[in-house]
């Protein structure tokens, strides 16, 4: 299968994602410039971390207008698996491909550390190879990862099992002390209603080999490889 990793001006995890997809997971991968208009035959698309367009105005707000985003949207509409990591998640929120928004971390601090994250649902292409309630140790590195959605939208997310990753303690228990940024309900990652678009603030691609401090993130990209091999995803 083939991963396409979108490169915005200001992306900085693009090569990390490319490396994890190609060298760690061992699949084809290609970097796609944000001014391109096609996804080069992607089976799965990654919007990487960084500071797309300098995070001017709001995180992800300008990246939404990059020419490649029309292709990403139509790929997602056809059921193609799309993963937004960190800034990529913020872009998906601004583009309306995922619900909600990000505000500044509650303690006004850029947080960069490895945190425990619990896998809430395994019926998405990016968690298919995870065990239910598995705790992954993944790095976070963001200043605006404080997830917000209005009360009715938040309730709908929980009701439709769209919360995919949640900050917990290492044993998988939720607690305010383990919420690094003030996200509502300890949300670290969500999916859309169709479940093919997933966004998360932690960086699985930066935790894909033991030498990086954790290899727990590898399962996220391995999941989509498995899901595509099993034909669980239908897209043109």
């Amino acid at each position, binding site marked *: 299968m083939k991963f396409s990793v979108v490169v915005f001006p200001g992306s900085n995890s693009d090569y990390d994602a490319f490396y994890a997809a190609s060298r760690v997971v061992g699949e084809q991968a290609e970097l796609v410039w944000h001014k391109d208009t096609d996804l080069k035959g992607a089976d799965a698309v990654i919007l990487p971390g960084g500071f797309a367009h300098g995070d001017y105005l709001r995180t992800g*707000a300008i990246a939404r207008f990059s020419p490649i985003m029309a292709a990403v949207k139509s790929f997602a509409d056809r059921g193609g698996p799309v993963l937004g990591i960190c800034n990529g998640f913020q872009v998906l929120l601004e583009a309306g491909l995922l619900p909600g928004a990000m505000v500044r971390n509650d303690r006004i601090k850029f947080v960069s550390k490895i945190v425990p994250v619990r896998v809430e649902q395994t019926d998405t292409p990016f968690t298919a190879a995870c065990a239910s309630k598995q705790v992954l140790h993944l790095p976070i590195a963001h200043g605006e990862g404080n997830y917000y959605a209005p009360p009715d939208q938040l309730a709908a997310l929980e009701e439709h099992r769209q919360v995919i990753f949640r900050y917990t303690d290492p044993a998988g228990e939720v607690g305010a002390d383990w919420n690094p940024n003030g996200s509502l309900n300890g949300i670290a990652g969500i999916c859309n209603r169709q479940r093919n678009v997933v966004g998360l603030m932690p960086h699985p691609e930066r935790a894909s080999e033991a030498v990086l401090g954790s290899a727990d993130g590898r399962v996220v990209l391995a999941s989509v490889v498995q899901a595509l091999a099993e034909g669980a995803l239908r897209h043109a």
Partner: protein
Amino acid sequence: MKARVYVTLKPSVFDPQGHVVAEALVTLGYADVKDVRQGKFFEVELDHADPATAKARVTEMADKLLANPVIESYRVEVLQ
């Protein structure tokens, strides 16, 4: 013609930056500060003579780009 757009977080959304600024002001000795909400301010120059049209256009811009309606509200003023 110029228009001004004031964007702020909705009252229901916690404003961490405003909160820290308020704490700093209290530390400076302004004990009377109860709260601060931080926002954004845009000055838009337009090629319009009609204030009503200008206001409608800028309101549309605020909806589409300048504010994120999930977390922010805005106010538009047209300067004569």
